[in-house]
């Protein structure tokens, strides 16, 4: 599996439908991943849209050295961090819209974390430090390799390995006996 690189190549060759395949494969996951940083589904979606539009505007910026999914998540992470830096400038959603947020959050979770096991782990993840949460998310929810996760997080493989080891230990404590089975 080339994680979207083949589809993107076809899109560059003029096959419009290939872009839908890329979106199908990565868009929701990216929104969910970015939401982990910004904790705002709308903003996360906005960032993901920007990341995908980058793929169209700067067609030859992606060099196929990493998987397309890794590239998209790298862009997403960088934009999410930018958004966090400008958080104070960004206005929050209106109050009436804010009430809808938890529902939408759940909807997004359900869309991305289809299986029950993953959802249980994700609920426990909220209690983990951010870096651990990020590593677990990329490896367990996005099915990235340690190397790909390391690229997205701008860390080396060993650091990701350590983060995952510690995250698992924490999760086992949080999830209790069930955790043994889930992890």
């Amino acid at each position: 599996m080339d994680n979207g690189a083949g589809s993107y190549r076809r899109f560059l060759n003029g096959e419009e439908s290939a872009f839908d395949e890329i979106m199908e494969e990565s868009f929701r996951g990216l929104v969910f991943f970015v939401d982990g940083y910004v904790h705002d589904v709308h903003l996360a979606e906005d960032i993901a849209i920007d990341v995908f539009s980058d793929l169209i505007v700067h067609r030859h910026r992606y060099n196929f050295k990493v998987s397309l999914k890794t590239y998209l998540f790298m862009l997403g992470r960088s934009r999410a961090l930018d958004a966090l830096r400008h958080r104070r400038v960004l206005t929050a959603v209106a109050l009436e819209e804010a009430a809808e947020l938890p529902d939408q959050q759940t909807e997004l979770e359900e869309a991305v974390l289809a299986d029950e096991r993953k959802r249980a782990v994700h609920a426990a993840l909220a209690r983990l430090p951010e870096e651990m949460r990020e590593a677990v998310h990329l490896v367990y929810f996005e099915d990235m390799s340690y190397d790909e996760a390391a690229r997205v997080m701008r860390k080396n493989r060993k650091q990701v390995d350590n983060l995952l080891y510690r995250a698992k230990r924490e999760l086992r404590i949080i999830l209790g006996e069930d955790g043994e089975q889930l992890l």
Partner: protein
Amino acid sequence: MRDMETCRAEIFRRSGERIRRRQRRRRTALTLCVPLALCLVIGLTVGPDWVRVGRANKGAENQLPSSGEKATQVTVLPLDGGEEWFLTKTAAEELQAILGGVKDRDAAGNSKHEDEKDKTSVYASECEIPNDAEFFGTKADDQCQESASTEPTATAALEEPAYRITLQRGQETVDYVVTIDGLVEELTGEPIPLTEEELAELRAVLGID
């Protein structure tokens, strides 16, 4: 949360907008940079020549009066093979004044000059037959010799070191030759009667003293 189709449409809408913005920026940069670059290239290639021509013109303007009949460019050329030079505007005006003064004096004293000429002719005729009239005696001989020595001749005027002065009055060019002894109009070979003071002044103006 927007559905996938709406998100896709939004992605393409934003992409189109960004591409258009990028093209606009590129066009703006081109419309600004191309003339700038052209100006720079032209400035670097032709500019030095313009500056050189401008300096030369400025120098010529300095040497020339602004306009009119007096617009005269004066060139001084040493006849012994030296390099020629131009007179400055002020020096050219001074030269004009000297030559103008001589002309005025000539015009005013034309009739007087005629009388003197007659007298000179009389003296000359007297000189030819010195022994004819005792009335003049040795005194007449002295006067004859005196008049012969004071009258400037073209041959004397052309003695070395000599300089050719070229006066440019519009299309007209007049050449003079100035020597230690005097000034001669080159075309006609006629000597210009200058007093010693005028000659000294003229030489000073020409810078050949």
